[in-house]
């Protein structure tokens, strides 16, 4: 039972990690409290759904959906999000709430509200190890998430653009001084963050129902993770995301499944009360 719950938790945690990574990047880089972040997750799921049906192939459908996500991300960053950098928090929050409502309801009109799942390309037979059951899409989701996070890590750590990215993330003024093109970095960061969230939608949509309101629930969790981890900690957010997935899974197994969504917020409130800078955050940062 425990191992089963642990593994389920890690799979859910992979999804949280992908959403939260993007959220941390956008929050830390652009100081935008992005309520519309969950909508990219939702849109990623819906586009994957439609393109998988269209091409009758999950992998092609998923990749095409990601290309669309990238285009949407670039467009929305250039048109809207770019203007929100350095605006006060009330303004940016209200505008991103507006975007979130708009996207959610547009999807509701275009696709309809009835829940569905993305058709998955694997055989129905689960993998059984001892008394643990794991379905194949879950294995796929877990390892794909690891690969995405690995690529992201490689990009940030070892590429030239990644270095500029890190510099801007830590100190924008200094980045400007050394001649980094921060507008390019902003567009890039937003696009990466949004697309990774979209990928989470395209992946998790195989094992969960997709519906227009899924983004709202997801963004709540992403916020909880980012603030719990500490606003500027990308790796902290990944760690907390997996942790939260496990806690939720264990909590719903041993305590109550109806209240599994509450754990994130209880943790958040405790963190804000006792360590407001976040678990991995630095004081005064």
């Amino acid at each position: 039972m425990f191992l089963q719950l642990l593994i389920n938790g890690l799979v859910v945690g992979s999804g949280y990690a992908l959403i939260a990574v993007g959220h941390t990047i956008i929050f830390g880089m652009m100081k935008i409290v992005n309520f519309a972040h969950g909508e990219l997750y939702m849109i990623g799921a819906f586009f994957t759904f439609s393109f998988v049906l269209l091409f009758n192939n999950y992998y092609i459908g998923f990749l095409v959906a990601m290309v669309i996500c990238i285009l949407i991300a670039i467009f929305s960053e250039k048109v809207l999000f770019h203007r929100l950098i350095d605006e006060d928090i009330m303004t940016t929050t209200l505008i991103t709430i507006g975007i979130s409502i708009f996207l959610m309801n547009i999807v509701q009109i275009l696709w309809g509200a009835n829940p569905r799942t993305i058709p998955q390309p694997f055989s129905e037979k689960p993998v059984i190890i001892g008394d643990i059951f794991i379905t194949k899409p879950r294995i796929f989701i877990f390892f794909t998430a690891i690969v995405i996070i690995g690529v992201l890590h490689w990009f940030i750590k070892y590429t030239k653009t990644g270095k500029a990215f890190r510099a801007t993330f830590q100190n924008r003024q200094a980045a400007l001084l050394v001649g980094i093109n921060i507008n390019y970095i902003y567009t890039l960061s937003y696009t990466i963050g949004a697309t990774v969230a979209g990928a989470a939608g395209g992946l998790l949509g195989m094992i969960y129902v997709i519906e227009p309101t899924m983004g709202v629930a997801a963004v709540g969790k992403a916020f909880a993770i980012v603030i719990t981890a500490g606003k500027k900690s990308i790796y902290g957010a990944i760690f907390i995301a997996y942790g939260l997935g496990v806690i939720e899974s264990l909590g719903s197994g041993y305590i109550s499944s109806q209240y599994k969504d509450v754990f994130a917020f209880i943790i958040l409130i405790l963190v804000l009360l006792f360590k407001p800078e976040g678990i991995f955050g630095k004081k005064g940062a």
Partner: protein
Amino acid sequence: MNINSNIKYIIGILLLILLPFLINNEYLLHLLIMGGIYTLLVSGLNLIVGYIGQLSLCHPAFFGIGAYTTGLLFKRLSTPFLLNFLLAGIITAIISIGFGYITLRVRGSAFIIMTVSFLHIMHLLVLNEVDFTMGQKGISGIPNINILGYNFNTKTSYYYLILILCLFTLFIIYRLVNSEIGRAWKAIRDNENLAKSIGINVFKFSNFAFVSGAFIAGLAGSIYAYYINYISPDLFLFSITTTLLVMLIMGGKGTILGPVIGAIIFTLLPEYLRFISEWRMPVFGVILILGILFFPRGLFSIKEILSMKMKKKEVSS
């Protein structure tokens, strides 16, 4: 207030009193009653968002707590209206004191997230504690208001009740805003550090605004439960937060009449744009975005914005 504007207000109030005789349209009257309930909600939300400058997204939770207090008191104890009504306000206020005590220590993004979380948790509680709240089914069969034998069984009677409540609330808010308390609120909004350094207890005054807003929302929730005779967990949905924000932003935050204008217009407008009914929420989203970008002081500041532009032109030319 000079005599001239006093007369304007008196004429306005007289018109509102005569309105049920003038319109003779049950449905329109219903919309006006709902507009009144929204006026109470948005005016309360305005205290924390408009005057303190902290974005609270959990206001519908206080409305819902007020409505559920009333519904449950009636279902379990059959207590009379006046008691239910007052308890709805008081219990809501007590809960908001507890919540505010924890959350108003933080500002900005953390506060915003905590308020969303609170709304979400309240929604889950009401949905899942079926034995206590009846879950998704909601509570039906709440009777009409009865005060000392007088039964509120017409729309007109509710209209007048809401009208009195709105005028009374606005009057109190007006007096608060134009006093030391209102000045402290604005000081906190404009410059928190300077407010502290002239002796303003930021935590105390933020809490007072937050709790006052919650108290009003609780009362509004109670009236709503009696008026509609039915309540459900849908009262805790985030879409209500959105509606309230659209009303507040477009009406003009940080003003006394702004919330009234926003509430009335955005209650009536969607009903008269029925043909786009399924587009209502996306349109609200766009309105919110455009409103914030172009009319941060509300639609009715257009005059002010235009005159400022003219002045700028004069200066530049």
